[in-house]
């Protein structure tokens, strides 16, 4: 519990400051719904990377995977593919991405930082490439073992699903509400439940902590470390894929160059604020969710407290740093007292 105290205080403080900035509007139900929706969205990504960080891994490609998923999902919908099939395809793709990362990290023993950093570039590049790929020409080339058709056509463009009433039901997932509670928050709670069962209520969770705390010891204890590490990468990329699908459904538009940009940093920051140690072996689902809410709260505060746009990043960075320092000091005090 003491490990959650720091982040709990920080969230409460931010929340108090937000209400103090402008009680009438900031305290309105509408604003709470907005914050809940944003926390719900980033919560899914943060829970994804949180479990991975606990197992001692890291994923810098989250934002690019979000972007690539959003763009591919949009392109499939443009081709009038059934939305369910499109979602299944996109999410399967992200599972493959996670598997790819996991295999490179475990079997080739590459550093997760560099593997996923390369991923960051590759998937962003693919997101930019996807809108101009002419699949018919590509298949024709492949079928004829030739290279005579031009597979790139046009130039990169935004992908969108505006003006598609047939997708209204699906969009409900990202922007709908159930008796006033944003659907996306409910989705996040679903993900959090799965994560809690995995992490706190099953033996797999113990294994993840053990691997993150001391991988060698875990291996000597007979845990199939590679298998669980790969699982953590797959989980993280899958959540990023879910994030991409939801991003397109929510915004109805995605820019190949920008969609999902920096989201990996938001997710990692949220997880670390929430008590995950980048050294692995530490972290809880409740903390991750609290940590996630810090950034949406801070941004909301900037607007309601009238902090100029130019100061926003500085304020956010300093607040995060202060929170981290306070949290660290609290933890040390708790540890010193035993």
């Amino acid at each position, binding site marked *: 519990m*003491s490990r959650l*105290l720091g982040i*709990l*205080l920080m969230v*409460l*403080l931010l*929340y*108090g*400051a937000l*209400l*103090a*900035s*402008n*009680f*009438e*509007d*900031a305290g*309105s139900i*509408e*604003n709470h719904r*907005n914050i809940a929706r*944003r926390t719900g969205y980033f919560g899914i990504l943060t829970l994804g990377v949180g479990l991975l960080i606990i197992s001692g891994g890291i994923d810098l490609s989250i934002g690019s995977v979000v972007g690539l998923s959003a763009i591919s999902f949009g392109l499939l919908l443009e081709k009038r593919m059934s939305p369910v099939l499109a979602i299944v395809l996109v999410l399967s793709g992200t599972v493959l991405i996670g598997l790819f990362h996991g295999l490179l990290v475990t079997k080739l023993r590459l550093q997760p930082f560099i593997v996923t950093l390369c991923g960051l570039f590759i998937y962003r590049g693919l997101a*930019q490439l996807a809108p101009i790929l002419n699949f018919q020409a590509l298949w024709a080339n492949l079928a004829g073992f030739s290279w005579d058709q031009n597979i790139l056509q046009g*130039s*990169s*463009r*935004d992908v*969108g*699903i*505006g*003006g598609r009433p047939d997708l209204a039901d699906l969009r409900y997932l990202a922007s709908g509400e159930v008796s006033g509670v944003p659907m996306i928050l409910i989705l996040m709670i679903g993900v959090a439940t799965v994560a809690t069962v995995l992490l706190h209520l099953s033996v797999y969770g113990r294994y993840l902590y053990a691997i993150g705390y001391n991988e060698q010891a875990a291996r000597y204890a007979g845990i199939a470390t590679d298998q669980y590490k790969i699982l953590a990468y797959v989980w993280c990329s899958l959540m990023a894929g879910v994030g991409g699908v939801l*991003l397109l459904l*929510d*915004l*109805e*538009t*995605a*820019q190949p*160059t*920008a*969609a999902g*940009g*920096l989201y990996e940093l938001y997710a990692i920051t949220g997880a670390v604020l929430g008590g995950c140690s980048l050294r692995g072996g530490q972290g809880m689902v409740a903390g991750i969710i609290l940590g996630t809410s810090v950034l949406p709260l801070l*941004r*909301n505060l900037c*607007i*309601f407290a*009238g902090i100029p*746009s130019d100061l*926003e*990043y500085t304020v956010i960075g300093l607040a995060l740093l202060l929170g981290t320092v306070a949290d660290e000091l609290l933890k040390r005090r708790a540890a010193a007292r035993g």
Partner: protein
Amino acid sequence: MKSLRTLGWVLVALALTVLPACNRGPSKPRVGFVSNNTAEFWTIAEEGTKKAADELGVEVVFRRPPNGTAGEQKDIIEDLLTRKVQAIAVSVNDPENQLDFLNRITDRIPLLTQDNDAPASKRLCYVGTDNYEAGKEAGKLVKEALPDGGTIAIFVGKPDPLNARQRRQGVLDELAGEKDAKGPKYGKYTLLDTYYDYVDFKKAKDNAADALTKLRDEPNVCLIGLWQYNPPMILGAVKDAKREGKVKVVGFDEHENTLLGIKDGLIHGTVVQQPYKFGYESVKLMDAIIKGNKSGIPANGLMYIPHITIKKDNVEKFHQDLNKLLGK
């Protein structure tokens, strides 16, 4: 136990800070102005909104999405709605796909589009440049720079945005002397290519350098930059190729280096928009609309802010005025 007590104190302290805030009530009309990125262009627009705010006694909430993404912009607009702005002016990110979202705004408050329009939405009015006409103006500059014709190349960030398409077509139509001109010959001018850099400045410069290499044996060359950073990047490449003065450059917008280039005689001219007036007129119009006076909205819903051509003869004064606005 100790920690619980600390928590209790923090909560009490929070409650105390919250209470006084309840007394604040709305006094002035409040309007929002949201850009689509953080370019310096918007600093000038912000000055215009401030001027109107002072004159009319309006509170303007001016916000820029730090990374220029549709997601950030949406969050900002939602927060401004919650903050009860009574009207809002937005530079739209993706006019075709964000209709639902834009129309959800218009369900609640009057919406103006500025800088980038969404004509299919229920916005009341667009405030901004007529980019096709601005393009034709740039075309005239090209004709002045290369009166006997020659080879041109066009440089811009992206192919898709409406302003990029309109500016490009305006330039080409002016050169061809007809509407919807299709190349590759436009009157006495040949278009080498249109280069896109996806707002990567380095790529923008490399594009210009590549074009210069292709055109190394051409005597009459004019390079045209359609977005704010394009003319300086073109000029950089021209200087690297040691062809400054020989290769003509025509541009858009008022980048510092573009203005300096005009002063040095290395850039023939630039067509500038008036973001200051975007800000000023938007706030003025929103204030009138809030007060129930919609007579300021043109019948076609398009309030065009005239563009200005800057050449060697008027660059000095323009630059001074601009620096004053930017507080330099």
